[in-house]
Every structure is written in C-alpha cells, then in structure tokens.
C-alpha cells in the first residue's frame, strides 16, 4: 500500500505539470474555479468553443483521451497516468464536460464494435474534440427499461442494404451541438424485447432528424427530444450484429457508470468551506457539534468514494476488468450532493433562497447544486437501478421478476391503467 508516485509516475507528473503550466488557458482559471454545477462561468464566452480549443490543444500535444490507443487519437497511457493527468488538469478539466459522453461512452463502444476504417476515421476527431458525439438511448417509453424502446430500424425497400429509422428519442444530452451519435433501435418487434434490438452510429446532420431542446427543471437546456423521420443509415454503420443491440448497449452502459461515477463531486469541500465562514445560532457553523456530526458523515462518504476509486484503479492496473461494483460512485455521490445542497441552504437561512451568483454565498453554487442534483440521481441509471445492479451483479441476488421477459415485444401491454 503506497500513495506516493513511483519514480516513473513522478516523472510523468512533472511532464504533465510543465505542459499544463505552459499551455493552459490561465485567463479562464478563476471562472472555472467558481463555476457551479451544470454550468461554466466563462464571462459570456461560448463554452463549446472554449472547450473545443482546449481539447484540440491537448490532442495536438498527445494529451487527449490518454488511455486510448495512439492510432485512435490517444496516448496508450496507463490507468494511473490517466488519473495523474486528471489531478494535474484540475479545474481545466471542467472544459471537458461536453466530451464526456463521446469519450466515456460512444468512443469505447465504437472501439469495441466499429469496423477498423471507421475507428480510424471517427475516433481521432472525437478524441481531439473536433466532433462531438451524443448517446441516443432513452425514449419516452423506456429509460430504466431501455429494452422497451420503440424507435424502428427497417431495411430500405430499395435493396441498398441501408436502414430506415423512424421514432423518437428523449433526454439526449448535447444532441443540439453533436455531430454524431450512437443509436439503439428495434429491428424485430416479434421476438422478446431484449432480442430484437440493433445498434448504429449516425451523422446527426442526416436528413430527417429534428432536434427540439427540452427546458429542464433547473431552467437550463442540456438535453433534447430527437425525432427521426425516414432517416437513412448505411449498414456499414451498424455496431454489432442485427439483434445484438442489447449486448452492445451493455458495453456502453458499463463505461457510462465508470466515467460518470468515478471521481464524482459530492460538494463536501464547498460545504466545509461554507461552514468555516457562516454562523448558526451557536456561533460558527463548523464549531457547532450538530453541524459537525452531519459534516463527518458526508466527509467519510467523500473520502470513501475517493479511495474506492483508488482501489478500483489498483485492480485495473493489475489487469482486472472494471465491473458492476463501479455503480457505487454515482449511487453515493448523487444523493450526498443533494443532501449537502439542502443543508447548505438551511445554513444560509432566509438568504439561502438567493440564486444570483453575484449575491448568493459561494457564488450560488449550492443553489445550482440543489437544482441540478435531482438529475444526477436519474441520469445514467437511477439510484434504484444502481441498487438492483449491485444486488444482482455484485451480491448475486435473483433478478427482478420480469412479466415481459419471454413475451414478443409487440404483445407487451403498454399502459399501466389498462
């Protein structure tokens, strides 16, 4: 057990640090540091442009998607080197937000299932941030129950071998600024639901795609409805075999939990800082035993997650494949962030309602956290689905009883009130 860098790790860290010192957009640092949850404070500049600029610069110097193979735009770095990079990149890492889905989920899925020529064509610009990708999975009929999806892919009648897509996706983050997406569809409604799906990737500028932003509960618009009307996809863009979409999607979802869950913020450092500055009826909040007791619980959850990540990393370095136990990250961080945000509001008393970053304590970060955290507990697998995963896949408990399991998809009832 050793926390210190090995000599190679230390040399790598020094190299990273020197490069970041020489190249990072230092003028953005203060804004990035004070950025809230769900939005970047960049003084009105376009976050996508700034994010793309930074990503491009990193890519040119070989610092993009470090763990990817070199031929696909990465560096072939070890898992530990990737963590060291993350530690050194610090607040600038927030500029990578728009690429998380592409780098964390679409990229790995492409890497596992796309044809070689496609990997060489699409992965390097994805790594370099030149092209942004989105994930077209959830539908009105099914988020948790992803396999309940209804968007159809049918062979084109012209004999070209192309596929014609009709249907609707929902909650698609970043669809409005994405260039490509991975799309899961139903190709055979006459077989049980997990068996009749097929995965593709597609150009988001294809004719027949209509994107409508959805206004979120927190007022922002990060996700969209995406409608498909006779959208054509060449068969060469199929990922995996026809009918194997479920299997392909599991690769994406496992990577999703890894990339969303690891290193997730709980808001504890921000809360601790607030408690050192704000008064309760018993004096400074951090001196109030009732406050301390709550803080301690959130503190140990935060460090516990951090070191769980380190343990996973050690296992990864030994060559172990990351498994369902990684579901723990988001399951702990999401609810903790929400509890922390609520408590921070409580500490601020009446003024806790103010969300204006220029006036509110901590630049309104807690108010932003309060309004964003419900989404964290839903996106990429709800708390309940993550508990199911831990119970079934880590602890080996029986799967939920599924009344729709062996029924052909087109015979499954669609309304709970029927």
């Amino acid at each position: 057990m050793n926390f210190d860098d090995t000599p190679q790790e230390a040399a790598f860290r020094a190299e990273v640090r020197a490069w970041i010192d020489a190249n990072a957009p230092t003028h953005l640092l203060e804004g990035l540091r004070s950025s809230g949850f769900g939005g970047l404070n960049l003084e009105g500049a376009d976050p996508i442009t700034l994010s793309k600029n930074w990503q491009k610069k990193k890519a040119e110097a070989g610092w993009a998607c470090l763990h990817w193979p070199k031929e696909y735009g990465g560096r072939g770095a070890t898992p530990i080197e990737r963590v060291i990079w993350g530690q050194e990149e610090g607040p600038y890492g927030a500029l990578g937000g728009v690429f998380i889905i592409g780098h964390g989920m679409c990229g790995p899925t492409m890497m596992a299932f796309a044809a070689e020529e496609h990997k060489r064509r699409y992965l390097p610009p994805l790594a370099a941030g030149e092209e942004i990708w989105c994930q077209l999975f959830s539908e009105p009929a099914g988020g948790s129950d992803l396999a309940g999806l209804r968007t159809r892919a049918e062979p084109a009648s012209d004999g070209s071998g192309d596929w014609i897509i009709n249907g609707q996706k929902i909650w698609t983050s970043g669809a409005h600024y994405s260039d490509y997406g991975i799309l899961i569809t139903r190709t055979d409604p006459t077989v049980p639901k997990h068996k009749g799906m097929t995965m593709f990737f597609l150009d988001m500028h294809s004719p027949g795609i209509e994107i409508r932003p959805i206004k979120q509960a927190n007022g922002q618009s990060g996700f969209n409805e995406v409608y498909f009307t006779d959208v054509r996809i060449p068969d060469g863009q199929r990922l995996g075999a026809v009918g194997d979409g479920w299997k392909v999607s599991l690769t994406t979802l496992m990577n999703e939990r890894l990339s969303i869950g690891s290193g997730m913020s709980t808001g504890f450092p921000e809360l601790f800082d607030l408690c050192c500055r704000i008064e309760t009826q018993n004096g400074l909040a951090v001196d109030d035993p009732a406050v301390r007791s709550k803080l301690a619980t959130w503190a140990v959850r935060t460090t516990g997650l951090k070191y769980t990540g380190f343990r996973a990393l050690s296992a990864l370095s030994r060559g172990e494949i990351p498994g369902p136990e990684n579901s723990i990250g988001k399951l702990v961080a999401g609810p903790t962030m929400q509890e922390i945000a609520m408590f921070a509001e409580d500490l601020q008393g009446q003024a806790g309602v103010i969300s204006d970053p220029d006036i509110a304590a901590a630049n309104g970060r807690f108010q932003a956290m309060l309004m964003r955290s419900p989404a964290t507990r839903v996106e990429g697998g709800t708390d309940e689905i993550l508990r199911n995963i831990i119970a079934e896949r880590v602890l080996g408990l029986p799967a939920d009883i599924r009344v729709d399991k062996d029924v052909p998809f087109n015979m499954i009832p669609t309304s709970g009130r029927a």
Partner: protein
Amino acid sequence: MNFEFSDEQKQMATQARRYLADKCPSTAVRAILEGPEPYDKALWKGLAEMGFLGVVIPEEYGGLGLGYLELCVIAEELGRALAPVPFSSSVMLATEFLLAAGSDAQKRAWLPRLASGDAIGTFAYAEKAGAVTPKTIQLSAANNRLNGAKTAVPDGDIADFAVVAARTGTSISLYLVDLSAAGVTRTTLDTIDPSRSHARIDFADAAAEPLGAPGEGLRLISEVFDRAAVLTAFEQIGGADRTLEMARDYALERMAFGRPIGSFQAIKHMLADMYVSATLARSNGCYGAWALSTGAAELPEAAATARVSATQAFQHCAKNNIQVHGGMGFTWAFDCHLFYRRSNLLSVNLGSLSQWEDTLIQRLRARNTAA
C-alpha cells in the same frame, strides 16, 4: 501508487482466516458468551503461537517486528470471527501505550509477555456515563499511589496490568498498574456483549509507576487512540463484511410468497446499501492503514475517517442483518445477535461515534486553517 495489501499480507489474512475458521467457530464465541470463562484461553494461546499478538513489537522485545498493515489484516479476521479474546485491549492499546511511552525497563518487563500472550494488558479510562474529558477524570495519583475508580474497563477482570489515566493536580498523567497489587479490586460487569469481558476497577492507595512524562496523558491517549482507531476500524470492517455475507446467504435461501426473499427489491436494496457502507468503510480503512503504516502526517484525520466510517458500517450491517433474517434473526440460536452485540460494543470503544465525528471535523478544520 498502489492501494492494495501485498501478496504476503493477503497470505497472512488467509492463514488467519483458516486458523480462526477452525479454532473460533461461532460455538466458541457462544461458549464465552454463555459460560463462566471470561475469554477463550486456548484461542489466545494459539494466536500467540502464530505470532499474531506481537506483530508490531520489535524482535528485541519478543515480537515479529512487522508493520501495521499486517496488524490490520489480523484485526479484520478477528473481527469477522468475533474472536472472544482481549486482543483490542492488549494488542491495540496496552502494547501501543508501552511502545509510545514506556521506558526501556517497562518495555522489557511487559512487551515480551504481551507478545507471548502470558500477560494481558488493558487501558482504564472512563469513570462514569458520558464523554471522558479532562474534567471527568477524577481518579487521582500522588506519590505513585492511585485512588479512585474506573468503569467498563475492557478485559479489566482478566488483565495483568492496566495503563490508567489519572489526575495529577490540574493535568492528566498515565500510570502503569499491576492489577494483582494490594488496593486493587475488580468487579466483572454485565454488558451487552459478554463475549468480551468488562470490569469496574477500584483503586485504594494502589501502587503505580508513571508511564511517560507527567502531564503528558492527554497527548499520549490521543496518539494511541488514533492508532487503535485504525486497527479497530479493521475489526469492524471484518464484522461488517461477515454480516453482509450472512444476510446475503439467508436472502438466497429463505422463501416467502413462493420466491426467495432476496428477489424482493426491499431486501435487495437493503443489501445493496449494506454493501455500499461496507465498501466505503474498507476504502477509508485502507486510507487509515496507509497513514498508520507510513507514519504520514495525515494520520489524525485518516484515523478519525476510518473510525467513523467503520463504526457506521458495522452498526448498519449488523442491524439490517437481523432485519433480513426476520424472526429467526431475533432468536438466541441464530448468530445475528452476536454481531449486533459486538457492533454496538465496538462503537463506543475508544470513544463514541459522535465524539469521533466531532474530532474528524476539528482536525479537518485545523488542517484547512494551517494550509
């Protein structure tokens, strides 16, 4: 960076687990819980022969001279097995006090006997219900004589000597007392977990020798408690893991409404939450173990972190283990209550959860201010 125990340490854990599976099944724990013996003497002797009582004691004092990571893995196995032996008192506290403050003569007198299991040591601290503070320590020392009483002293009835926190004027000092000396009276107490013995000890002009410099008591206690907190955390982690396994196994076996109870989401989600607590506790424990074994400056906060997390996890897992077992969980015959008892015993060993929570935040604050 590497955040795992080494292969040798894992081997040591396996060896301890095998040994305990053989020598310390739950029938052995019950024998102590239900019978007149205060601890399992044969097991204690056996652990000594394996070298487990002197893991960190230097070889010149009869120990193995290994590090704290080794001791952590042993503590975890003892926690899993609910070993009914005075390990926490003798190894985690008495030994640590001697290593931290003992004179060479004191070390020579006691460490070899602690390592061989021929002597048992303990620490006598609390005097009444409530948090122990410098004010509540009323037992006084003058001219190397102690007067006063200590309560709920772990293994106080079986220990050969105790390290005693005593008032010396306005400060607190530590004394080493031979418990067979004149003026010492011990009374075994009924407790929530009779598999680990506790006693009241009365001192009437009992002879004592100073341990460490006068007035250094609080500093030494804090230092030793941090070390013991990490070790106890591993004992608790062992218990949390074992109760999670018991609950999982029962959930797979027990049928209700025509299906295993483990197929009900209420049970699955309860078990998932137990897994989360146990996992966070283990990760925090590793942080503590690293700090303890390397003497890192972060030890005070790492120890408090490990301690808070492990106490929460063991209590959480032990109580829900009973819930998963239903009515069976509340029978004397099932082992659930053994773990429930132990989890609640360990939760106040070395100071309560709320005190450790408070300590953790004080320490984080001190570090933030210093930074």
